[in-house]
C-alpha cells in the first residue's frame, strides 16, 4: 500500500474511486446535513446519492456509479449503517466489485483495504502475519505483527473489503466469524486482542454461480446481509453495456473496424437474455435454461471473438456464422443436458423467426451432431 499511495497522481493506470471522484465526494459532504453514523464521511442518504447519481442543491451533478435498481443500493447502504456486514452476490459482470469499491470510498474515504479471495488465501491475509526478523530478534510483540487489511480497518474504524469470499477455503473464511460477531480479533500469541473501532464494517463479494465451491458456513452467513446484484433489466440496457465494452476491448486489441456489428450484437444479447430468462422476448414460448451463467461478460466475449473472426478471417462484416460457434460454447457447458436445451431453443424459438434464418443455419452448422 505504501508504494501505491506514493504514486497516486495523473499517471496511474487506474485511480481509486475516492481519488477519481474526490470532487463529488467533497461536494456531497458539504451539502450533506443529515446525521452520519460514527466515522462515516457521509450520511447514508448521501452515500446512496453518490452511487445512484443526482443533482445537489448547489447544482453539483453527481454522476451515477451504479446503473440498476435503486433499492439494491439503498439496501446495501442501510446494511452498512445498521452495522451488519454486507455480502454482494451476483454472476460475473454485474458490478459487484465496482459497487463494493464505491461504497467503501463513500463511507470511509478509503477503498484500498482489500483482501482478494483465492483458493490459496491464507489466514494471515485476513488476520495478521509476522515480521519474522523481528519475531526472531525480539520475540512476539505488537511491533513484530504485520496487520492485514481487515485488522487495519478494525483499528481505524474503516470499511474492509473481501473479494470472492466463496473462493477462500472454508476454514479461512470462518476466521471472519469472531471479527463480525464479537468485533474483535484475538491475538493468542500475545494474549491480547485488537478491538474494532466504531465505523468498522466489511463488504464481501461472491459469485453466486460458484457458491458450491466453498459454501459459507451458516454461522458466517448469519453475520451477513445479502444483496443480489441482478443482470441488466432490459435488452436495450444490456445491448448498450455490451456494445460499450466490446468497443473498449476492440480498441484495446486494435481490431480493424468491422461492419454490421450492431445487428449481431443485438441478436447475441437476445439469445443470452432469452435463455437466461427461460422465456422468449415476446413472452409466448417457455424455454429450458442451460447450466451456464450466460452473463453479460460472456456475451461481451462472444461478440469480441466474433469481431476478431470477422476481421481476420472473414470479409470484414460480422455475420451469424462468426458468433454462432461462440454462442454454442457459451451455452453448452454440460455436453448432454445443455445440448438438448440449445437444440430445443433453436427449433422452438429461432427457427420460426423469419429474419433469423441465417442465424439458424449458422447454428445448425456449428452444432457437431
Amino acid at each position, binding site marked *: 500500500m505504501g508504494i501505491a499511495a506514493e504514486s497516486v497522481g495523473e499517471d496511474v493506470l487506474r485511480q481509486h474511486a475516492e481519488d477519481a471522484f474526490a470532487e463529488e465526494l467533497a461536494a456531497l459532504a458539504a451539502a450533506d446535513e443529515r446525521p452520519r453514523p460514527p466515522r462515516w464521511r457521509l450520511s447514508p442518504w448521501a452515500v446512496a446519492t453518490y452511487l445512484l447519481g443526482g443533482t445537489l442543491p448547489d447544482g453539483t451533478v453527481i454522476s451515477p456509479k451504479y446503473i440498476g435498481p435503486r433499492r439494491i443500493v439503498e439496501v446495501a447502504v*442501510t446494511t452498512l449503517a445498521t452495522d*451488519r456486514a454486507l455480502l454482494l452476490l451476483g454472476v460475473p459482470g454485474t458490478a459487484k466489485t465496482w459497487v463494493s469499491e464505491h461504497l467503501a470510498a463513500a463511507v470511509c474515504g478509503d477503498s484500498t483495504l482489500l483482501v482478494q479471495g483465492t483458493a490459496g488465501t491464507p489466514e494471515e491475509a485476513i488476520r495478521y502475519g509476522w515480521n519474522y526478523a523481528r519475531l526472531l530478534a525480539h520475540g512476539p510483540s505488537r511491533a513484530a505483527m504485520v496487520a492485514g487489511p481487515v485488522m487495519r480497518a478494525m483499528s481505524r474504524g474503516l470499511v474492509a473489503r473481501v473479494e470472492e469470499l466463496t473462493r477462500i477455503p472454508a476454514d479461512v473464511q470462518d476466521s471472519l466469524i469472531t471479527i463480525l460477531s464479537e468485533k474483535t480479533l484475538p491475538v493468542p500469541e500475545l494474549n491480547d486482542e485488537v478491538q474494532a473501532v466504531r465505523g468498522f464494517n466489511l463488504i464481501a463479494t461472491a459469485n453466486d454461480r460458484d457458491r458450491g465451491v466453498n459454501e459459507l458456513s451458516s454461522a458466517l452467513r448469519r453475520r451477513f*446481509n445479502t444483496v*443480489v446484484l441482478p443482470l441488466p433489466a432490459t435488452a436495450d440496457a444490456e445491448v448498450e453495456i455490451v456494445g460499450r465494452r466490446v468497443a473498449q476491448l476492440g480498441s484495446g486489441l486494435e481490431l480493424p473496424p468491422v461492419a454490421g456489428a450492431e445487428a449481431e450484437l443485438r441478436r447475441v444479447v437476445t439469445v443470452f437474455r432469452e435463455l437466461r430468462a427461460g422465456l422468449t422476448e415476446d413472452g409466448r*414460448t417457455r424455454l429450458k435454461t442451460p447450466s451456464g451463467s450466460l452473463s453479460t461478460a460472456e456475451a461481451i466475449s462472444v461478440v469480441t471473438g466474433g469481431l476478431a473472426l470477422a476481421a481476420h478471417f472473414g470479409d470484414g462484416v460480422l455475420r451469424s456464422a462468426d458468433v454462432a460457434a461462440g454462442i454454442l460454447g457459451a451455452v453448452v457447458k454440460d455436453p*448432454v443436458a445443455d445440448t438438448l436445451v440449445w437444440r430445443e431453443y433453436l427449433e422452438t424459438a429461432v427457427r420460426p423467426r423469419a429474419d433469423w434464418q441465417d442465424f439458424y443455419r449458422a447454428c445448425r452448422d456449428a452444432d457437431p451432431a
Partner: protein
Amino acid sequence: MARLPAARPTLLGVRHHGPGSARAVGAALARLRPDIVLIEGPPEADPLLSFAAEPGLRPPVALLAHAVDDPAQAGFWPYADFSPEWVAITHASGHGVPVRFIDLPVAVSFTLDRARRERENDEPAEPVPSPVDPIAALARLAGRDDAEHWWEDVIEHRPPADDPLRPFAALAEAMAALREDERPAVDPGPTAEPDIERLREAHMRQCVRAARRAGHTRIAVVCGAWHVPALADPPSAAADRALLAPHRAAVKVETTWVPWTHHRLAQNSGYGAGVASPGWYRHLFDTAAEPDPLPRWFVRIATLLREAGHPVSSAHVIEATRHADALAALRGRPLAGLDETLEAVRAVMCDGVTGPLALVHDALVVGDVIGEVPPTVPAVPLQRDLTREQRRLRLRPEPAARELELDLRKDSHADRSRLLNRLALLDVPWGVPVPGRESRGTFRETWRLDWQPELAIRVAEAGVWGTTVVAAAEARASDLAIRAESLADVTEVAERCLRADLPDALPVIMRVLDRRAALDADVGRLADALPGLVRALRYGDVRGTDTSALDTVVAGLVVRICVGLPAACAGLDHDGAAAMRRRLDDVHAAVQLLPERRQDEWYATLRRLADRENLPGLLTGRATRLLLDLGRLAPEAAAPRLARALTRGVPHRESAAWIEGFLAGGGMLLIHDEGLLDLVDAWITGTPDDLFVEILPLLRRTFATFAAPERRLLGERIRTPARAAVPIATAEHFDGGRADAVLPLLAGILGLAHREVTP
C-alpha cells in the same frame, strides 16, 4: 368543521380498505355516537345488513348485486375486517343504530350500462376511464410519485390524533381543493352520456336529506374521500331531484352476501382498484394497539419461513427490524412500510434471493384468509342461471336416471353437451358420459342423466367461481389447469375445456400447458400428453372451435419430443424400453392425425432412432418397422438392418427385442406384406444351423404373440412354394371422376357439408 350545526351530517371521507381509515372511522364513530350511519354502498343490499350482526358472517365477505335476468351483469362490494365500511357497519349493529347504504341503486347503474352498450351497438364497451385517482393527485402535489407510499406515510402510519375528527376535516379540505376546478358549470344536456359520478353524489345527498327528514340529528356518513366535498356543499334538493328524475331503474336486481378471499380482495371490485396487500393491512389493523407493528410482523414472517424449512433465528428478526427502520430513515419515511420490511426480509433472512419472498407474499402480504357466510343468506345466482339454461335447452332436472343421445351436429344438442360438460367441470356431475356404443364417431355422445338433490348444494358451492355457468366453468377450468400436478392433468383439463366450449379459459390453459411442456425434461411425460392434445385438436375441429392456440402448443410439443426422444431412449432397461415403445406407437398414431407439414420432423426422428446403434433393440426395431410401414424405408433397406440386428456379435436379448419391436402388431402384416415376409423368411432360412438353434427361443417369443389362425396362415403361406397371390387393389384403373362423385355424400354423412371438401 369541528363545531357543526346539529342537523348537518358528519362526513367521514375514507379510503376503501384502508386500515388507518378504518381505525379513524371507529374512533370517530365512538366519539360521535351517531343515531344513524349512512354508508357508500348499494341500497338494494340494505336488508342484508342485518346479517352483519350474525356470528356466521365473517369477513372477508362481499356484497353481490346482479341483474335477475342476466347474472353475468354483477357487481361486488367486498369488505374485510379493516374496511372502514365494515367498521361502520359493525359499530352501528353493535350499538343498535340504523345503518343504510346510500350509493346510486345498482339497478339504475345497470340500466345505464345497458343503454350505453346498446348505443355502442353491442360492441365490447371500452373500459370506462376511472375517475381521477385523488390519492395519486395529492401525492403528486406532495412531490411523491408513489401514491401508495405517500398515503401510507401521511394516513396509515400516523398515530391516532387526539381529536378523531381532525384527520377527516384535513382530508375533506384537500379533496375540496382538488375538486375546485373540476366541476362542470354547465349542464351537459340530455343527449350526452349521463355522468354517473354526479348521479351517485346526487343520490347520496338525497339519502342524507331523507335521513334528516326522518328525524335523525346525529348523522354519520362514511364515503370515499373524493365524494366529501360534493356532500358537504349540497346544491338545492330540487336540482338533485331533477338530475335523478330521468333515470329510472329498468332492471331487477338481487343481492346477497358471498364469501370472499384476500386473494380476490387484491383484484378490482365495485370499490375500484383492489388492495395489493390485504394481509399487511390486516396486520396493521390488528396491531393498532401495539406501539410498533414491525416486530410482530417479522416474527410472523420468520415463523412462516421456518415452517418452510428456512433456518431463521430470532437474531434474524432483530436484524430485520433494525434494517427496515434504517431503510425507512434512508428513504425519508416516518415508519417502515411494506416495501422496507420485504427488503429487510430479503437481505437478512433470504440470502438476497427472491424465491422465499414469493411465499411471504402469498401467505402473509396477501394472505389466504377466506370469509364465511351463514346458510340463511339468499341463494347464489349460479343456481338461477342454471335453471334458466335448463329451461332454454329443455333439459329438466329429473331424479330418475335416463340416457340422453346427442348428435353434436345439431346446435341444440351441442349446447346440451356443453352445459353437461361445464357442470362436470364445476363438480356437478349431473350427466355422466356413457362410452359410445358401436360407432366411435366424434359427433355422437351418450350421457346418463341423474339429478340428485345434493347436486343443488354442489351448485351453491360452485357459486364462488362465478355467477353464470359459463363464467364459473371458465374460472374453474383455469384454476384446475394452474393447480394441475402433471402435464397429463393439464392436458385433461384442456380436453374438457374444449368439450365444454370455454374459449376464454383456453388461453390460460394453453399458457400453463406451454410452460409445463417447456420445463418438463421428461420426454415420456410429453409423449403421454400428446395423444390427448391431438384428440382435443380434432375434437375442436368437429365443433368448429378456434384451436389455433392448441395447434401451436401441439406443434411445440412435437418438436420437443423429437429433440429429446433419442436421448430419452438411451440406457433403458427392458421395462423402460417396453414403456417407451408404447409411447412411440402412441405418438406415432397421434402424429399421423396432424397436418403433413408437422409430420416431417417426427419421421426424421424415427429415422435417427432406427439408425442409432446404442439404443434398446426393441425401439430401433420398432422405429424401423414404422418407417417401413410408411414406405419411408425401402424393403431392400430393411433387410440389411434386420440382418445387422441379428448377427452373432449382438447379444441375444437385443436381437430378440429387435425382432419383437419389428414384428409387433400381429402377424397379419407378415401375411399380407410379401416384401416383409420375404425378408424374414430369407433371413431365417439363410441362418446357419448352429445360430438358428440359438435364436429359436427368441423368435418363438415373438411369434407366440400372434393369434393361432395367423400363425397357421403364415405357415401355409410359407409351405406353399408358389404362394397364393393375395389380391391386391391396384390403382391402375383408378377412375377419379367416379371417386369424386362419392365425396358429397361422404361429406353429408360426416357433417362437413358446409365446408369445402378437398379430395
